[in-house]
């Protein structure tokens, strides 16, 4: 189980997370939604250990992420998959080498088995025949699917998706959602999906969490969110939240990540 407990995070005096708490049970996928600039990606990067909270904890099966020994952290990361917003494919490698990279570096599989696994994963994401292409030669949707193949190739137990469908056309959005749903059925991972694809994302998640004003304002099933009495949440999912209401939490400054890197990650 993943538990996010009372997370606080500020950048340059702007408090982005103001005590966010959320639980993700084993095998459960949670959609994390909310207005742009509320800190959804920041929250996800905290879960992945790429950012250190000012206060609060990220707990995996009872163990605080920031109190883990280096070896335990590496062991935990071996169970992780993360789909970055822009794919984060290694641009000096082909699609094949990108997907093979985690297997070559983190397993003792021979090259024949690596090839088998990579080609199978590429087939699953519909990229058969694109294995010799470089990331720069791929369309946005293909790059996302290649990144998904790389994230899934080690059969992760925990998957984090940072806006997997942003900027893609509705057909690709649908195919990527179907792909995530299929792989979830196949691998049974626990996961968090940060998404703006409302209500499409509700089709394959077990729970929905709304990040608003730096806190998790709502947690419930996709059915429950449509029945909530919380007008802010209801208006947000219906797309009628006034622009002024977005100012409740200040937008995350663009320099936030840079400052964070300089503080150092796990």
């Amino acid at each position, binding site marked *: 189980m993943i538990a996010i407990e009372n997370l606080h995070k500020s950048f340059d005096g702007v408090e982005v997370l103001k005590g966010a708490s959320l639980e993700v049970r084993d095998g459960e996928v949670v959609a994390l939604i909310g207005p742009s600039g509320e800190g959804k990606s920041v929250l996800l990067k905290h879960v992945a250990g*790429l950012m250190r909270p000012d206060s609060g904890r990220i707990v995996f099966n009872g163990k605080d992420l920031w109190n883990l020994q280096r070896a335990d952290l590496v062991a935990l990361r071996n169970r992780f998959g993360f789909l970055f917003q*822009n794919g*984060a*494919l*290694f641009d000096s490698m082909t699609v094949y080498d990108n997907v093979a990279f985690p297997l070559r570096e*983190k397993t003792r599989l021979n090259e024949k088995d690596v090839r088998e696994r990579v080609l199978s994963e590429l087939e699953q994401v519909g990229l058969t025949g694109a294995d010799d292409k470089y990331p720069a030669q791929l369309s946005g949707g293909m790059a996302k699917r290649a990144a998904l193949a790389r994230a899934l190739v080690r059969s992760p137990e925990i998957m984090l998706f940072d806006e997997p469908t942003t900027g893609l056309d509705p057909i690709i959005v649908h195919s990527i959602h179907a792909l995530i749903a299929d792989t979830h059925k196949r691998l049974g991972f626990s996961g968090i999906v940060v998404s703006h694809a409302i209500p499409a994302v509700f089709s394959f998640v077990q729970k929905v969490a709304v990040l608003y004003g730096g806190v998790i304002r709502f947690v419930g099933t996709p059915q429950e969110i449509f029945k909530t009495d919380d007008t802010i949440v209801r208006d947000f999912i219906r797309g009628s939240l006034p622009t002024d209401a977005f100012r409740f939490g200040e937008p995350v400054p663009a320099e936030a*990540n840079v400052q964070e890197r300089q503080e150092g990650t796990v």
Partner: protein
Amino acid sequence: MGNPADRWLLDPLRELGRIPLSAVGGLGRMGIFLGRTLFYTFAPPLKFFRVLKQIQFIGFGSMLVIVLTGAFTGMVLGFQGFYTLSRVGSTAFLGSMVALSLLRELGPVMAALMVTGRAGSAVTAELGIMRITEQIDELEILGLSPYRYLVVPNLLAALISVPLLTAIFDVVGILGGYLIGGKLLGVTSGTYFGAMTDYMDMSDVLNGLYKSICFGGLIAWVCCYKGFYAGYGAEGVSKATTQAVVLSSVLILICDYFLTSVLF
């Protein structure tokens, strides 16, 4: 804080204090970066093929620029040295003058500056782009150390390549000096090369080598650090690249002064 008097008084003070704090913080971060890099340099496994690839990029890739700058530096030294020495009737010392200038000073410094401009800037830009496109974060997510994969190979490659490039710079420079002094201005080869062995010893060669090793480490450290912590977008990467080249070049010259004071 809402008090206008506080704002007028404290805000400028706060801004003033931010400057040294930021400088000290930056130095601390660079120190931590170096410490982590050294840790992963000695903690196996070493990414041997990545080291070879970077030696090819930093070392072999810089050969042309080193040969060209070495040749012309030696040729200028040949001209200047000949005319200066001819005023006191000591043109016989041209060979030792050219060789000593190159081995002790110009070779290590010029080669390091050339490597900074050609390879150091490229390393910063590459790491910076990897940073802004989250490729470095991806390595972390995979449980792999970006230091081991990206920084250590550059450090080792620079430590190996820069002394070798310096040696090439020195040899080509000496030959360039001979081309001018010997072939153009009439100093015989026996006089030119004989003077070198008479007035130089192994410590001149070794001290130049020590300098170039220090400069190699310095270039890799600064350029990798600046790329690793590049700011956002294309502007962030371009700023990081400029800072890496300027800071490396300045530090090479400062470091050269102190090394010269200690070594010679």
